[in-house]
């Protein structure tokens, strides 16, 4: 009896109401565990960022901060003076550098990568299969193997310690990915759309620009948000290529503060939280498109 009822309702991994109290308890227990595992550490980062170091060191540790303060953030914004203010003062300018690099790389990727993705999805041309395999390979390529070459090339070009150099280097790991994601996305748009545009008198370029692109918002958002996130979070390339003070992005600056004995962990936590926020919010805001785009891009190839 009970079985037929569940079947009739459409079964997916156990339906909610027909569950016994015991299995519901197990499920909610597991859900709490997963939720704590996923966001507990990040929440703790936030709590430490609004705490005083003395309360973090206090034992027994209290997980609800006895004193709440914005001092750590004020130090970063230069509103409160402290002994390591020179280092804290680097946070905001390096965030701007990150913003510039990530935005430019994202824009470049969306223009160049999307166009190529469209061609891969719709047309046949010489060396298509070979270049697709090359794309797949560059997607799996260790970026770190390119850094020695970038180091010497950018030095020869005089682009060491510039944001332009970083933009160039970042395209090496974002561009193949964007082409790949956009190819997968355009494959989900029926080719009849372009064909009918061609029949209606558009030329091929117009069919792409005026008919296909305007309905490709979700794909562009997925590709753009992912590229931005990758660049915003990138650490090793920026750490190696841009060593001069003031030329680097946020992750190397935070990593430089981390492990220094003279800076309180709570201040580093505040910089980390502040630096993580843009990427996290971007991803959460566009999560629907991002998850669809990425899973389609990885699964369908």
């Amino acid at each position, binding site marked *: 009896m009970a079985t037929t009822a569940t079947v009739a309702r459409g079964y997916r991994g156990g*339906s909610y109401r027909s569950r016994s109290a015991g299995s519901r308890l197990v499920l909610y227990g597991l859900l709490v565990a997963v939720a704590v595992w*996923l966001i507990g550490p990040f929440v703790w980062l936030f709590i430490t960022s609004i705490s005083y170091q003395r309360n973090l060191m206090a034992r027994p540790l209290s997980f609800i901060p006895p004193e709440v303060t914005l001092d750590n953030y004020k130090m970063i914004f230069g509103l409160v003076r402290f002994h390591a203010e020179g280092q804290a003062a680097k946070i905001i300018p390096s965030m701007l550098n990150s913003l510039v690099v990530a935005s430019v790389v994202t824009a470049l990727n969306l223009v160049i990568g999307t166009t190529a993705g469209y061609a891969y999805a719709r047309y046949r041309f010489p060396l298509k299969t070979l*270049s697709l395999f090359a794309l797949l390979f560059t997607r799996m390529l260790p970026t770190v193997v390119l850094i020695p070459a970038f180091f010497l090339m950018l030095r020869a070009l005089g682009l060491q310690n510039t944001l332009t150099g970083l933009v160039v280097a970042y395209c090496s790991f974002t561009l193949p990915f964007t082409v790949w994601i956009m190819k997968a996305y355009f494959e989900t748009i029926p080719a009849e759309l372009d064909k009918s545009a*061609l029949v209606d008198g558009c030329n091929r370029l117009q069919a792409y620009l005026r008919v296909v692109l305007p309905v490709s918002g979700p794909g562009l958002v997925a590709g753009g948000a992912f590229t931005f996130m990758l660049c915003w979070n990138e650490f090793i390339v920026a750490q190696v290529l841009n060593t001069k003070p003031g030329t680097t992005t946020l992750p190397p600056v935070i990593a430089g503060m981390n492990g220094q004995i003279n800076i309180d962990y709570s201040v580093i936590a505040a910089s980390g939280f502040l630096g993580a926020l843009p990427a996290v919010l971007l991803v959460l805001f566009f999560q629907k498109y991002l998850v669809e785009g990425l899973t389609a891009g990885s699964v369908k190839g």
Partner: protein
Amino acid sequence: MTADPTRSTLPQPLPGQAVAPRLHLPSIRLSERWFAILLVLPAILGIFLVVLFPLLYSLWLSFTDVNLLRTTGPAIELFGVRVPLFRWIGIQNYVRILDDPLYWSSLWRTLYFVGAFVLEATVMGMGMALVLHERFNGRPLMRSLLLIPWSLSRVVVGLLWVGILDFEFGALNGLLAKLGLIHGYIAFFKDGFSALNVLVSVYMWNQAPFAALLFLAGMQSVPEDLYSAAEVDGADYWQRFRHVTLPALRPIVFLVLVLATVNGFLMLDLIYVLTMGGPGHDTTTVSWLGFQTTFTFFKFGPGTAILYTLTALCLLLTFVYQRLLLARFEPEA
């Protein structure tokens, strides 16, 4: 454009109509081809300049005696820029690194790291996916939580786990002491093997949510009547998982395994933030050894040689991945 919409509506002599497409067909093909090439060209040129050229240049460097201070010597001119070529020394760099016991110990450590990481990420990813696939209130919210660890910079990931695992102010020691489970604090990073395992787990925390997303996407495409049929046949939860979910997810499991393997081999940033390869060399993987040799000791020749052994491995895994994509997905998609 050749397909003039007015043409079909206008009455035309029959022979003309039959001839027109035949005349236009070759030119359509050609222009289609050139149009596609024009669309792909910027990306291909870009990838050539920022991926292929540096890749080949790095390969060249791995066969030379790189001296960063010397500015004279052989070089190639590219668009008026002088890129130094250094002195060719054949496979000496490779011989040198393969002679180094540290390379081999790093390789074994890397294999342990990758094995442990792949196992942890796949099992945890599958576990989380199974829990989140159930029906419950607030499922969309729970699924968005998956994106948080994954969207953090590895620098922040490392940093926030320092806050939890630190000997002095770490929350975990604080919690365990509060619950009375430990008397002295645990130094997670003091012992080499424990530090390596901490790295595995922290990286897993960052990466398993993405595996879970892929698994969830796969689970959603399993037809529901398969479950109903299994349930009618009296299959319990684990039997349904083993005989319905798992076979349907097989391609995605393979995909996750390949991606996790590549990511495991290449992981670098967490080592930088958390252990710097230490204590001693106990968390030195091949990628860290290559990175350190190149950019800490500025031995570009041996460093790029080490990194190239990793690249070869990735090429191999790409073949596996491509086989997977083409053989397993195309017919079903």
